[in-house]
Protein backbone atom coordinates (compact mmCIF):
# COMPACT_ATOMS: atom_id res chain seq x y z
CA UNK A 1 0.00 0.00 0.00
CA UNK A 2 0.97 3.63 -0.44
CA UNK A 3 -0.17 6.44 1.73
CA UNK A 4 0.63 10.14 1.70
CA UNK A 5 -0.27 12.46 4.54
CA UNK A 6 0.12 16.18 4.29
CA UNK A 7 0.97 18.40 7.22
CA UNK A 8 -2.08 19.44 9.17
CA UNK A 9 -4.27 16.68 7.83
CA UNK A 10 -6.39 14.49 10.02
CA UNK A 11 -6.71 11.02 8.57
CA UNK A 12 -8.95 8.31 9.94
CA UNK A 13 -7.72 4.78 9.29
CA UNK A 14 -10.51 2.25 9.44
CA UNK A 15 -10.86 -1.42 8.72
CA UNK A 16 -11.83 -4.72 10.25
CA UNK A 17 -9.65 -6.47 12.84
CA UNK A 18 -6.57 -7.93 11.28
CA UNK A 19 -6.58 -5.51 8.38
CA UNK A 20 -3.17 -4.25 9.38
CA UNK A 21 -3.96 -0.88 10.90
CA UNK A 22 -1.99 -1.31 14.10
CA UNK A 23 0.88 -2.83 12.16
CA UNK A 24 0.95 0.18 9.88
CA UNK A 25 1.01 2.62 12.77
CA UNK A 26 3.70 0.70 14.58
CA UNK A 27 5.77 0.53 11.40
CA UNK A 28 5.56 4.28 10.98
CA UNK A 29 6.60 4.71 14.62
CA UNK A 30 9.46 2.30 14.15
CA UNK A 31 8.32 -0.59 16.31
CA UNK A 32 8.20 -2.88 13.29
CA UNK A 33 10.60 -2.97 10.37
CA UNK A 34 8.95 -3.23 6.99
CA UNK A 35 9.87 -6.13 4.75
CA UNK A 36 9.84 -3.89 1.74
CA UNK A 37 9.12 -0.30 0.86
CA UNK A 38 10.08 3.00 2.37
CA UNK A 39 8.80 5.49 4.87
CA UNK A 40 9.54 9.10 4.09
CA UNK A 41 9.03 11.80 6.66
CA UNK A 42 9.39 15.41 5.71
CA UNK A 43 11.38 14.42 2.65
CA UNK A 44 13.84 12.14 4.49
CA UNK A 45 13.88 8.36 4.28
CA UNK A 46 13.42 7.09 7.79
CA UNK A 47 12.85 3.40 7.05
CA UNK A 48 16.04 2.36 8.84
CA UNK A 49 15.88 4.84 11.69
CA UNK A 50 15.62 3.04 15.06
CA UNK A 51 12.47 3.42 17.10
CA UNK A 52 13.76 5.69 19.80
CA UNK A 53 15.12 8.20 17.31
CA UNK A 54 11.79 8.74 15.62
CA UNK A 55 10.53 10.74 18.56
CA UNK A 56 13.14 13.38 17.92
CA UNK A 57 11.93 13.51 14.33
CA UNK A 58 8.46 14.28 15.56
CA UNK A 59 6.58 11.00 15.36
CA UNK A 60 4.62 9.93 18.44
CA UNK A 61 2.44 6.88 18.84
CA UNK A 62 -0.31 6.33 21.38
CA UNK A 63 -0.27 2.53 21.35
CA UNK A 64 -3.23 0.22 21.32
CA UNK A 65 -4.09 -0.64 24.90
CA UNK A 66 -2.51 2.55 26.17
CA UNK A 67 0.58 0.81 27.55
CA UNK A 68 1.24 3.11 30.44
CA UNK A 69 4.09 2.26 32.77
CA UNK A 70 2.02 0.71 35.54
CA UNK A 71 4.16 1.43 38.56
CA UNK A 72 5.01 4.97 37.56
CA UNK A 73 2.74 7.85 38.47
CA UNK A 74 0.91 9.86 35.87
CA UNK A 75 3.44 12.64 36.17
CA UNK A 76 6.34 10.22 35.87
CA UNK A 77 4.80 8.70 32.76
CA UNK A 78 4.64 12.17 31.27
CA UNK A 79 8.16 13.07 32.35
CA UNK A 80 9.70 9.98 30.75
CA UNK A 81 8.32 11.12 27.43
CA UNK A 82 9.31 14.68 28.09
CA UNK A 83 12.96 13.84 28.53
CA UNK A 84 13.48 13.20 24.84
CA UNK A 85 11.01 15.73 23.57
CA UNK A 86 11.54 18.10 20.74
CA UNK A 87 11.32 21.75 21.72
CA UNK A 88 7.76 22.90 21.79
CA UNK A 89 4.90 24.10 23.88
CA UNK A 90 3.92 20.81 25.49
CA UNK A 91 4.90 20.17 29.08
CA UNK A 92 3.12 18.72 32.10
CA UNK A 93 1.17 21.91 32.70
CA UNK A 94 0.01 22.06 29.09
CA UNK A 95 -1.08 18.45 29.19
CA UNK A 96 -3.11 19.08 32.33
CA UNK A 97 -4.68 22.05 30.64
CA UNK A 98 -5.67 19.93 27.66
CA UNK A 99 -6.92 17.11 29.89
CA UNK A 100 -8.18 18.76 33.07
CA UNK A 101 -9.27 15.43 34.53
CA UNK A 102 -5.60 14.61 35.04
CA UNK A 103 -4.96 17.54 37.37
CA UNK A 104 -5.73 15.69 40.64
CA UNK A 105 -4.16 12.47 39.36
CA UNK A 106 -0.56 13.48 38.77
CA UNK A 107 0.73 11.59 41.81
CA UNK A 108 -1.38 8.52 41.24
CA UNK A 109 0.02 5.21 40.01
CA UNK A 110 -0.93 4.58 36.42
CA UNK A 111 -2.23 1.11 37.20
CA UNK A 112 -4.81 2.63 39.53
CA UNK A 113 -6.43 4.82 36.90
CA UNK A 114 -9.69 4.23 35.11
CA UNK A 115 -9.79 3.53 31.40
CA UNK A 116 -10.58 7.07 30.40
CA UNK A 117 -7.93 8.50 32.72
CA UNK A 118 -5.36 6.11 31.31
CA UNK A 119 -6.22 7.06 27.77
CA UNK A 120 -5.90 10.74 28.57
CA UNK A 121 -2.51 10.08 30.16
CA UNK A 122 -1.41 8.05 27.17
CA UNK A 123 -2.31 10.79 24.74
CA UNK A 124 -0.77 13.41 27.00
CA UNK A 125 2.38 11.34 27.15
CA UNK A 126 2.66 11.27 23.38
CA UNK A 127 2.03 15.00 23.28
CA UNK A 128 4.87 15.62 25.73
CA UNK A 129 7.28 14.76 22.93
CA UNK A 130 6.00 17.72 20.91
CA UNK A 131 5.19 15.61 17.91
CA UNK A 132 4.58 16.76 14.40
CA UNK A 133 2.74 13.56 13.56
CA UNK A 134 0.47 12.01 16.17
CA UNK A 135 -0.52 8.38 15.69
CA UNK A 136 -3.53 7.25 17.69
CA UNK A 137 -4.39 3.57 17.86
CA UNK A 138 -7.92 2.76 18.95
CA UNK A 139 -8.14 5.36 21.69
CA UNK A 140 -11.82 4.75 22.32
CA UNK A 141 -11.44 1.02 22.87
CA UNK A 142 -12.84 -0.14 26.17
CA UNK A 143 -14.01 3.27 27.29
CA UNK A 144 -17.43 4.38 28.37
CA UNK A 145 -19.15 6.65 25.81
CA UNK A 146 -18.92 9.63 28.13
CA UNK A 147 -15.18 9.17 28.44
CA UNK A 148 -14.87 8.86 24.69
CA UNK A 149 -16.78 12.12 24.25
CA UNK A 150 -14.38 13.93 26.58
CA UNK A 151 -11.44 12.45 24.77
CA UNK A 152 -12.60 13.51 21.36
CA UNK A 153 -13.36 17.00 22.59
CA UNK A 154 -9.72 17.36 23.58
CA UNK A 155 -8.70 15.77 20.30
CA UNK A 156 -10.77 18.29 18.32
CA UNK A 157 -8.95 21.12 20.06
CA UNK A 158 -5.63 19.62 19.10
CA UNK A 159 -6.72 19.20 15.52
CA UNK A 160 -7.97 22.76 15.47
CA UNK A 161 -4.49 23.88 16.48
CA UNK A 162 -3.08 22.29 13.34
CA UNK A 163 -1.73 18.94 14.49
CA UNK A 164 -1.18 16.19 11.91
CA UNK A 165 -3.08 13.17 13.15
CA UNK A 166 -3.48 9.64 11.89
CA UNK A 167 -6.04 7.87 13.96
CA UNK A 168 -7.22 4.30 13.93
CA UNK A 169 -10.80 4.09 15.02
CA UNK A 170 -13.36 1.28 15.06
CA UNK A 171 -16.26 3.65 15.52
CA UNK A 172 -17.00 4.74 11.96
CA UNK A 173 -19.26 7.61 12.90
CA UNK A 174 -16.67 9.17 15.15
CA UNK A 175 -13.93 8.56 12.64
CA UNK A 176 -15.78 10.24 9.82
CA UNK A 177 -16.89 13.19 11.90
CA UNK A 178 -13.44 13.86 13.34
CA UNK A 179 -11.26 13.36 10.31
CA UNK A 180 -11.02 15.27 7.09
CA UNK A 181 -9.93 12.19 5.20
CA UNK A 182 -10.85 8.54 5.48
CA UNK A 183 -8.65 5.61 4.51
CA UNK A 184 -9.87 2.04 4.70
CA UNK A 185 -7.68 -1.02 4.89
CA UNK A 186 -8.58 -4.61 4.13
CA UNK A 187 -6.18 -7.52 4.47
CA UNK A 188 -3.20 -5.25 4.33
CA UNK A 189 -4.28 -3.17 1.37
CA UNK A 190 -5.89 0.20 0.88
CA UNK A 191 -9.38 -0.10 -0.47
CA UNK A 192 -10.67 3.39 0.04
CA UNK A 193 -9.05 6.80 0.25
CA UNK A 194 -10.68 10.17 0.05
CA UNK A 195 -12.36 13.14 1.74
CA UNK A 196 -14.62 12.06 4.58
CA UNK A 197 -17.60 14.02 3.34
CA UNK A 198 -17.40 12.45 -0.10
CA UNK A 199 -18.34 9.01 1.21
CA UNK A 200 -21.51 7.85 2.80
CA UNK A 201 -21.32 5.61 5.81
CA UNK A 202 -22.58 2.70 3.73
CA UNK A 203 -19.84 3.11 1.19
CA UNK A 204 -17.19 2.98 3.86
CA UNK A 205 -18.85 -0.05 5.47
CA UNK A 206 -18.85 -1.79 2.13
CA UNK A 207 -15.17 -1.10 1.70
CA UNK A 208 -14.60 -2.36 5.23
CA UNK A 209 -15.86 -5.77 4.25
CA UNK A 210 -14.35 -5.90 0.86
CA UNK A 211 -17.50 -5.35 -1.10
CA UNK A 212 -16.05 -2.34 -2.83
CA UNK A 213 -12.80 -2.99 -4.66
CA UNK A 214 -10.44 -0.28 -5.82
CA UNK A 215 -9.68 -2.08 -9.01
CA UNK A 216 -13.35 -2.51 -9.76
CA UNK A 217 -13.39 -6.32 -9.90
CA UNK A 218 -16.28 -8.17 -8.43
CA UNK A 219 -16.38 -9.33 -4.91
CA UNK A 220 -14.87 -12.35 -3.25
CA UNK A 221 -16.62 -14.10 -0.39
CA UNK A 222 -18.15 -11.83 2.19
CA UNK A 223 -17.39 -12.62 5.80
CA UNK A 224 -20.44 -12.80 8.01
Amino acid at each position, binding site marked *: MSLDIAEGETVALVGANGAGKTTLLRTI*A*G*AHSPHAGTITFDGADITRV*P*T*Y*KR*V*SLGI*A*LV*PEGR*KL*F*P*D*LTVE*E*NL*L*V*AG*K*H*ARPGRWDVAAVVEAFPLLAPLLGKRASALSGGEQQATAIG*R*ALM*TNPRLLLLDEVSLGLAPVAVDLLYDSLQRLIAEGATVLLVEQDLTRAMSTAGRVVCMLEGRLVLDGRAESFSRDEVTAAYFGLHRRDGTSTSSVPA
Partner: protein
Amino acid sequence: MTWVNAVVQGIMLGGLYALLACGLSLMFGVMRIINLAHGDIAVLGAYLVLVVLDHWHVSPFIAVLPVLPVMMLAGYVLQRLVLDRSLKSGLLVPLLTTFGLSIVIQNLLQEKFSPDVRSLGGPAGSIATASWQITSQLSIPAIGALVLGLAIAILGGLQFFLARTGPGREMRATAQDRDTAELLGVNARAVYGRATAIAVAIAAVAGLFLAIRSSVEPFSGPTQLIFAFEAVVIGGFGSLWGTLIGGIVLGVAQTIGAQIDPQYSVLAGHLVFLAVLASPRGGIFRVRRVAT
Protein backbone atom coordinates in the same frame (compact mmCIF):
# COMPACT_ATOMS: atom_id res chain seq x y z
CA MET B 1 25.44 -13.17 75.29
CA THR B 2 27.40 -15.01 72.66
CA TRP B 3 24.12 -15.51 70.82
CA VAL B 4 23.58 -11.79 70.78
CA ASN B 5 27.09 -11.39 69.49
CA ALA B 6 26.38 -13.94 66.81
CA VAL B 7 23.31 -12.01 65.72
CA VAL B 8 25.24 -8.76 65.63
CA GLN B 9 28.00 -10.34 63.56
CA GLY B 10 25.32 -11.75 61.32
CA ILE B 11 23.84 -8.33 60.75
CA MET B 12 27.25 -7.00 59.81
CA LEU B 13 27.77 -9.92 57.45
CA GLY B 14 24.36 -9.19 56.04
CA GLY B 15 25.59 -5.79 54.99
CA LEU B 16 28.20 -7.41 52.80
CA TYR B 17 25.68 -9.81 51.32
CA ALA B 18 23.31 -6.94 50.64
CA LEU B 19 26.09 -5.12 48.81
CA LEU B 20 26.84 -8.23 46.79
CA ALA B 21 23.21 -8.81 46.03
CA CYS B 22 22.44 -5.22 45.07
CA GLY B 23 23.82 -5.46 41.55
CA LEU B 24 22.20 -8.83 40.97
CA SER B 25 18.87 -7.43 42.10
CA LEU B 26 19.21 -4.38 39.86
CA MET B 27 20.01 -6.38 36.77
CA PHE B 28 17.13 -8.69 37.42
CA GLY B 29 14.75 -5.85 38.13
CA VAL B 30 15.60 -3.96 34.98
CA MET B 31 16.38 -6.69 32.49
CA ARG B 32 15.10 -9.92 34.01
CA ILE B 33 18.59 -11.33 33.71
CA ILE B 34 20.25 -13.28 36.47
CA ASN B 35 23.92 -12.75 35.85
CA LEU B 36 25.51 -16.03 36.81
CA ALA B 37 28.90 -14.34 36.51
CA HIS B 38 28.01 -11.75 39.15
CA GLY B 39 30.08 -13.34 41.91
CA ASP B 40 33.04 -13.64 39.59
CA ILE B 41 32.70 -9.99 38.66
CA ALA B 42 32.89 -9.05 42.33
CA VAL B 43 36.01 -11.18 42.69
CA LEU B 44 37.43 -9.58 39.56
CA GLY B 45 36.92 -6.18 41.16
CA ALA B 46 38.95 -7.29 44.16
CA TYR B 47 41.73 -8.55 41.92
CA LEU B 48 41.81 -5.29 40.01
CA VAL B 49 42.33 -3.46 43.32
CA LEU B 50 45.21 -5.82 43.97
CA VAL B 51 46.67 -4.87 40.62
CA VAL B 52 46.48 -1.19 41.52
CA LEU B 53 48.11 -1.92 44.85
CA ASP B 54 50.95 -3.69 43.09
CA HIS B 55 51.86 -0.44 41.42
CA TRP B 56 51.01 2.20 43.99
CA HIS B 57 51.22 1.94 47.73
CA VAL B 58 47.92 3.37 48.76
CA SER B 59 45.06 2.20 50.85
CA PRO B 60 42.68 -0.19 49.10
CA PHE B 61 39.93 2.36 49.64
CA ILE B 62 41.83 4.74 47.37
CA ALA B 63 42.86 1.97 45.01
CA VAL B 64 39.27 1.08 44.30
CA LEU B 65 38.55 4.52 42.87
CA PRO B 66 40.21 3.99 39.48
CA VAL B 67 38.86 0.44 39.40
CA LEU B 68 35.27 1.63 39.46
CA PRO B 69 35.17 3.42 36.09
CA VAL B 70 37.02 0.51 34.50
CA MET B 71 34.44 -1.89 35.83
CA MET B 72 31.59 0.36 34.77
CA LEU B 73 32.92 0.48 31.26
CA ALA B 74 33.38 -3.28 31.27
CA GLY B 75 29.80 -3.72 32.45
CA TYR B 76 28.47 -1.43 29.75
CA VAL B 77 30.41 -3.29 27.08
CA LEU B 78 29.28 -6.63 28.50
CA GLN B 79 25.69 -5.55 28.19
CA ARG B 80 25.91 -4.11 24.69
CA LEU B 81 28.01 -6.90 23.23
CA VAL B 82 26.89 -10.03 25.00
CA LEU B 83 23.83 -9.68 27.17
CA ASP B 84 21.76 -7.62 24.78
CA ARG B 85 21.96 -10.33 22.16
CA SER B 86 21.13 -12.92 24.77
CA LEU B 87 17.98 -11.06 25.73
CA LYS B 88 16.52 -11.38 22.29
CA SER B 89 16.80 -15.15 22.31
CA GLY B 90 14.60 -15.87 25.25
CA LEU B 91 15.16 -16.58 28.91
CA LEU B 92 17.46 -19.59 28.56
CA VAL B 93 20.24 -17.94 26.65
CA PRO B 94 21.22 -15.22 29.17
CA LEU B 95 21.60 -17.93 31.80
CA LEU B 96 23.83 -19.92 29.49
CA THR B 97 25.98 -17.05 28.29
CA THR B 98 26.54 -15.65 31.78
CA PHE B 99 27.41 -19.14 32.98
CA GLY B 100 29.97 -19.46 30.21
CA LEU B 101 31.29 -16.01 31.10
CA SER B 102 31.62 -17.08 34.72
CA ILE B 103 33.83 -19.99 33.74
CA VAL B 104 35.93 -17.78 31.50
CA ILE B 105 36.49 -15.17 34.21
CA GLN B 106 37.39 -17.72 36.87
CA ASN B 107 39.92 -19.47 34.74
CA LEU B 108 41.44 -16.29 33.35
CA LEU B 109 41.87 -15.07 36.93
CA GLN B 110 43.57 -18.30 37.80
CA GLU B 111 45.83 -17.93 34.82
CA LYS B 112 46.77 -14.32 35.50
CA PHE B 113 47.02 -14.53 39.26
CA SER B 114 47.89 -17.81 40.88
CA PRO B 115 45.30 -20.00 42.58
CA ASP B 116 46.55 -18.58 45.88
CA VAL B 117 44.16 -17.00 48.27
CA ARG B 118 44.61 -13.23 48.47
CA SER B 119 43.40 -10.79 51.03
CA LEU B 120 43.17 -7.03 51.24
CA GLY B 121 42.91 -7.07 55.01
CA GLY B 122 46.54 -6.26 55.44
CA PRO B 123 46.74 -3.31 53.09
CA ALA B 124 43.51 -1.96 54.50
CA GLY B 125 45.25 -1.29 57.74
CA SER B 126 43.89 -1.27 61.23
CA ILE B 127 40.30 -0.77 60.21
CA ALA B 128 40.17 -4.38 59.05
CA THR B 129 40.65 -5.63 62.57
CA ALA B 130 39.40 -2.81 64.74
CA SER B 131 36.25 -3.19 66.75
CA TRP B 132 34.25 -1.55 69.47
CA GLN B 133 34.02 -3.59 72.59
CA ILE B 134 30.54 -3.13 74.01
CA THR B 135 30.61 -5.79 76.63
CA SER B 136 32.98 -8.62 77.33
CA GLN B 137 31.06 -10.81 74.95
CA LEU B 138 29.79 -8.35 72.40
CA SER B 139 31.94 -6.44 70.00
CA ILE B 140 31.16 -4.62 66.81
CA PRO B 141 33.79 -4.89 64.13
CA ALA B 142 34.61 -1.60 62.47
CA ILE B 143 34.76 -3.07 59.02
CA GLY B 144 31.39 -4.73 59.49
CA ALA B 145 29.80 -1.46 60.53
CA LEU B 146 31.44 0.29 57.61
CA VAL B 147 30.13 -2.25 55.11
CA LEU B 148 26.65 -2.19 56.57
CA GLY B 149 26.61 1.58 56.51
CA LEU B 150 27.90 1.60 52.95
CA ALA B 151 25.31 -0.96 51.89
CA ILE B 152 22.53 1.17 53.30
CA ALA B 153 23.99 4.27 51.68
CA ILE B 154 24.38 2.65 48.27
CA LEU B 155 20.97 1.04 48.36
CA GLY B 156 19.46 4.34 49.43
CA GLY B 157 21.32 6.16 46.72
CA LEU B 158 20.19 3.70 44.12
CA GLN B 159 16.63 3.97 45.31
CA PHE B 160 16.86 7.76 45.08
CA PHE B 161 18.36 7.51 41.62
CA LEU B 162 15.53 5.32 40.43
CA ALA B 163 12.77 7.31 42.05
CA ARG B 164 13.82 10.90 41.55
CA THR B 165 16.10 11.30 38.58
CA GLY B 166 15.39 11.35 34.87
CA PRO B 167 17.71 8.46 33.97
CA GLY B 168 16.34 6.49 36.91
CA ARG B 169 12.79 7.04 35.76
CA GLU B 170 13.77 5.88 32.31
CA MET B 171 15.27 2.77 33.81
CA ARG B 172 12.08 1.95 35.67
CA ALA B 173 10.00 2.64 32.60
CA THR B 174 12.20 0.46 30.42
CA ALA B 175 12.08 -2.28 33.02
CA GLN B 176 8.30 -2.27 32.90
CA ASP B 177 7.80 -1.97 29.16
CA ARG B 178 10.79 -1.78 26.91
CA ASP B 179 8.88 -1.39 23.65
CA THR B 180 6.70 1.46 24.82
CA ALA B 181 9.69 3.22 26.33
CA GLU B 182 11.42 3.11 22.97
CA LEU B 183 8.32 4.58 21.35
CA LEU B 184 8.75 7.53 23.68
CA GLY B 185 12.32 8.14 22.71
CA VAL B 186 14.15 6.09 25.33
CA ASN B 187 17.22 4.28 24.04
CA ALA B 188 16.58 0.98 25.79
CA ARG B 189 19.95 -0.52 24.95
CA ALA B 190 21.73 2.41 26.54
CA VAL B 191 19.50 2.15 29.61
CA TYR B 192 20.32 -1.51 29.97
CA GLY B 193 23.98 -0.71 29.52
CA ARG B 194 23.82 1.82 32.33
CA ALA B 195 22.06 -0.64 34.61
CA THR B 196 24.73 -3.25 34.02
CA ALA B 197 27.47 -0.70 34.50
CA ILE B 198 26.03 0.32 37.86
CA ALA B 199 25.51 -3.30 38.89
CA VAL B 200 29.07 -4.23 37.99
CA ALA B 201 30.55 -1.24 39.81
CA ILE B 202 28.64 -2.04 43.00
CA ALA B 203 29.75 -5.66 42.65
CA ALA B 204 33.34 -4.47 42.49
CA VAL B 205 32.88 -2.53 45.74
CA ALA B 206 31.41 -5.64 47.31
CA GLY B 207 34.40 -7.62 46.09
CA LEU B 208 36.73 -5.10 47.66
CA PHE B 209 35.12 -5.51 51.06
CA LEU B 210 34.94 -9.25 50.69
CA ALA B 211 38.69 -9.28 50.20
CA ILE B 212 39.21 -6.98 53.17
CA ARG B 213 36.94 -8.88 55.49
CA SER B 214 38.26 -12.26 54.52
CA SER B 215 39.91 -13.27 51.28
CA VAL B 216 39.37 -14.14 47.64
CA GLU B 217 40.70 -16.68 45.20
CA PRO B 218 39.94 -17.15 41.52
CA PHE B 219 37.15 -19.63 42.14
CA SER B 220 35.41 -17.77 44.99
CA GLY B 221 32.89 -16.28 42.57
CA PRO B 222 30.21 -18.97 42.51
CA THR B 223 29.97 -19.11 46.29
CA GLN B 224 29.40 -15.37 46.44
CA LEU B 225 26.85 -15.62 43.67
CA ILE B 226 24.89 -18.17 45.64
CA PHE B 227 24.93 -15.96 48.73
CA ALA B 228 23.89 -12.94 46.72
CA PHE B 229 21.10 -14.87 45.08
CA GLU B 230 19.93 -16.26 48.40
CA ALA B 231 19.81 -12.74 49.81
CA VAL B 232 17.73 -11.54 46.87
CA VAL B 233 15.29 -14.43 47.08
CA ILE B 234 14.86 -14.23 50.84
CA GLY B 235 14.15 -10.54 50.60
CA GLY B 236 11.96 -10.84 47.56
CA PHE B 237 12.83 -10.18 43.97
CA GLY B 238 12.54 -6.67 42.73
CA SER B 239 12.71 -4.84 46.02
CA LEU B 240 15.99 -3.10 46.80
CA TRP B 241 15.30 -2.74 50.51
CA GLY B 242 14.19 -6.36 50.49
CA THR B 243 17.69 -7.20 49.35
CA LEU B 244 19.08 -5.54 52.46
CA ILE B 245 16.72 -7.46 54.73
CA GLY B 246 17.45 -10.66 52.82
CA GLY B 247 21.17 -10.16 53.21
CA ILE B 248 20.81 -9.59 56.92
CA VAL B 249 18.59 -12.64 57.40
CA LEU B 250 21.10 -14.74 55.50
CA GLY B 251 24.02 -13.35 57.48
CA VAL B 252 22.31 -13.98 60.79
CA ALA B 253 21.33 -17.50 59.73
CA GLN B 254 24.93 -18.24 58.92
CA THR B 255 26.39 -16.83 62.11
CA ILE B 256 23.82 -18.57 64.28
CA GLY B 257 24.53 -21.78 62.41
CA ALA B 258 28.20 -21.23 63.11
CA GLN B 259 27.46 -20.81 66.81
CA ILE B 260 25.96 -24.28 66.83
CA ASP B 261 28.84 -25.73 64.86
CA PRO B 262 31.23 -23.94 62.52
CA GLN B 263 30.60 -26.56 59.84
CA TYR B 264 26.93 -25.72 59.82
CA SER B 265 27.20 -22.04 58.98
CA VAL B 266 26.81 -22.14 55.21
CA LEU B 267 24.34 -25.01 55.50
CA ALA B 268 22.15 -22.95 57.81
CA GLY B 269 21.98 -20.22 55.20
CA HIS B 270 21.02 -22.71 52.51
CA LEU B 271 18.30 -24.20 54.69
CA VAL B 272 16.79 -20.79 55.42
CA PHE B 273 16.86 -20.07 51.69
CA LEU B 274 15.11 -23.32 50.86
CA ALA B 275 12.59 -22.70 53.63
CA VAL B 276 11.77 -19.31 52.15
CA LEU B 277 11.45 -20.86 48.70
CA ALA B 278 9.09 -23.44 50.12
CA SER B 279 6.88 -20.96 51.90
CA PRO B 280 3.77 -19.77 50.10
CA ARG B 281 4.81 -16.17 50.10
CA GLY B 282 8.11 -16.97 48.50
CA GLY B 283 9.86 -14.01 50.01
CA ILE B 284 9.65 -11.50 52.80
CA PHE B 285 8.72 -8.71 50.46
CA ARG B 286 6.26 -9.43 47.74
CA VAL B 287 7.71 -9.61 44.28
CA ARG B 288 7.47 -6.20 42.75
CA ARG B 289 9.08 -4.49 39.87
CA VAL B 290 11.91 -2.09 40.41
CA ALA B 291 10.02 0.78 41.95
CA THR B 292 9.96 2.90 45.07
